[in-house]
């Protein structure tokens, strides 16, 4: 089962490597990982999408917490989080397919951010499943290049991570 975990870390030298080598050293999977600083100075936030049964997830959470630089681990698997991902897609757009691409972009409320006579570059944002869906529709038209950020996640409700 896929899980999305947020990891708040000290913005210290080598912290990304510590987290990444924990996953590789213990044989855990990383489907995607994104990391950037937060509103608190010296603190970064990672969103890791991983897979495993309950026992593996428990070990992942505990092992992450054991790393000295990890401040907090939040598991959003119970649906308590909102997930978003962005994709930049370069797609072939010539003749009749130009209109089809535009229709798809419109339906998914995506944006065209670069245009040439032979291509469109699209910015799409949303739940990762939505990104999968737009890609499924664009793929037959000719995907030239794809960049995904990986999911980021935040809890629902008025509370911040500190409560």
């Amino acid at each position, binding site marked *: 089962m896929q899980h999305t975990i947020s990891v708040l870390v000290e913005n210290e030298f080598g912290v990304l490597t510590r987290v990444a080598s924990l996953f590789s050293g213990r044989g855990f999977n990383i489907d995607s990982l994104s990391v950037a600083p937060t509103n608190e100075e010296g603190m970064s936030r990672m969103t890791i999408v991983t897979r495993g049964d309950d026992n593996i997830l428990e070990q992942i959470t505990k092992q992450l917490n*054991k790393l000295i630089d990890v401040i907090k681990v939040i598991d959003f698997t119970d649906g308590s989080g909102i997930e978003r991902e962005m994709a930049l897609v370069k797609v072939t757009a010539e003749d009749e397919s130009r209109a089809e691409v535009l229709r798809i972009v419109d339906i998914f409320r995506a944006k065209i951010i670069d245009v040439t006579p032979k291509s469109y570059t699209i910015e799409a944002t949303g739940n990762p499943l939505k990104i999968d869906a737009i890609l499924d529709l664009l793929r037959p038209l000719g995907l030239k290049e794809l960049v995904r950020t990986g999911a980021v996640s935040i809890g629902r409700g008025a509370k911040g991570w500190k409560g």
Partner: protein
Amino acid sequence: MKMNGARIMLECLKQEGVDTVFGYPGGTVINIYDELFNVKEIRHILPRHEQAGTHAADGYARATGKVGVAIATSGPGATNTVTGIATAYMDSIPMVIVTGQVPTALIGNDAFQEVDIIGITRSCTKHSFLVRDVKDVATIMKKAFYIARTGRPGPVLVDLPKDVQIAQAEFVYPETVEIRSYKPNLEGHPRQVEKAVAMLLESRRPVLYVGGGVVLGNASDELTSLARKLTIPVTTTLMGLGSFPESDVHSLGMLGMHGSYCANMAMTHSDLIVAVGARFDDRVTGKIATFAPHAKIIHIDVDPTSIKKNVRVDLPIVGDVKDVLSKMIKQVDKQKEKVAGFVAALGPWHEDVAGWKIKHPIGYKQSTTIIKPQFVIQKLRELSDDDAIIATDVGQHQMWTAQFFQFNKPRTLLSSGGLGTMGYGLPAAMGAQAAFPDRQVIAICGDGGVQMNIQEMATLVQNRLPVKIVILNNNFLGMVRQWQELFFDKRYSQTCMELPIDYIKLADAYGAKGFLASKPDDVEKVIKQGFAEKGPVIMEFKIAREEKVLPMVPAGASLNEMVLNA
């Protein structure tokens, strides 16, 4: 007061009460060594190899309970410490390793003797620091010691570039340390403790399964008290030996692959296992699917990741074992009547356990013509001091020591349990002897492992560390040979140490004494001669070459499928 980074580091060691360090000089630590000239409070011991220096710091830490300190230069000096660091990490030994590093401006340039030691040791340290500003040296050293000794202890590496050692800063040692992302949970939850005691008092076939956490957590007294109050049989892992007196009637000895028949049978038939500071290692559980099939499991450990890692757990208690055991004792003391009933109801269980002890005790067949290794270990116990410290290498001699020495006090066995490091015994004994110059320290080695750090004979002689080195010599890498005999059709590939070494001459070359025993009648005499010497000694015993460590649970088999005689 302003001083350079090298001196600040040494002042930090003084503040932490460090009296002994094991280190090896080199280009990027030369400033530290220059300052060391002015620091009289710290005894520096120069090993002949950085790996041995790290093992010595580890042995010092295991014997004393204090944080062991090792220093090495950058590059090869640092990489030589890796085996020592990994050994300490696997057994949760508190250590601080200070390595020199090339100047910060050269880091990443493949400079002379540059190596990314932080990267290399990432997976075998509890934490590590690269110091990039001389102003941070004191804070980082404070954090390093704090992290090394608290929670589940472990080695912490501090990489100190040469320019940081040279730069000047005001020395202020922080009085407290606060790391927002590191707050080990030391206090066992009272409700979980209550539940544990209730489960315990309802059980009829309980076993206390005790690991190195009880030794590290200085909780032997609490454990012994709880076991005796409730008359619960106690089995220990290799790392737990000494935490409960093996002379006690409730002791089952060691469990697992080379554990006693009664310990493994007790685990298999138990209805409640209380794991204390142990981690259900594969050498202990055997085949996981059939491990302790009838037992509920209570698991007490300071490290939450140890819980439910290998086996299902019915009641977890995260906390310092000393705290949790003390709370359990208080609960037990409140329920005198119930406890009396519980103890009375354990009668049949005690009978079962006693029966298994009698049926297949740990033993061997004595010989009048050839020295049996087990006999040497028994004689060593008989003739050594009560508080003697034993260090071992890894292999057959290590298991014979665990089976036959009978450990009654914590911190008297130093052995590489998790990593299984050959060459550990001699330098670890050296570290323990440096900490306790007046106690008897014995390194029990095989002829394979002893040669992996034999150069430390020089350190022993130079520093007047009177370690007694026992070599059980079968001219084989015995444990691997045993596996080849049992599971590989006696194809002894590369396990015969064909060149006989004259260890007596070797001892002589280093300026130490050597004694040789070739027949059983010599054993007692040689041990007495060795113990009577004031300096370091080699005692070599030419033992039965193909003697095996038994009983044995073959790898992948269940604990109750022991090979008793092969």
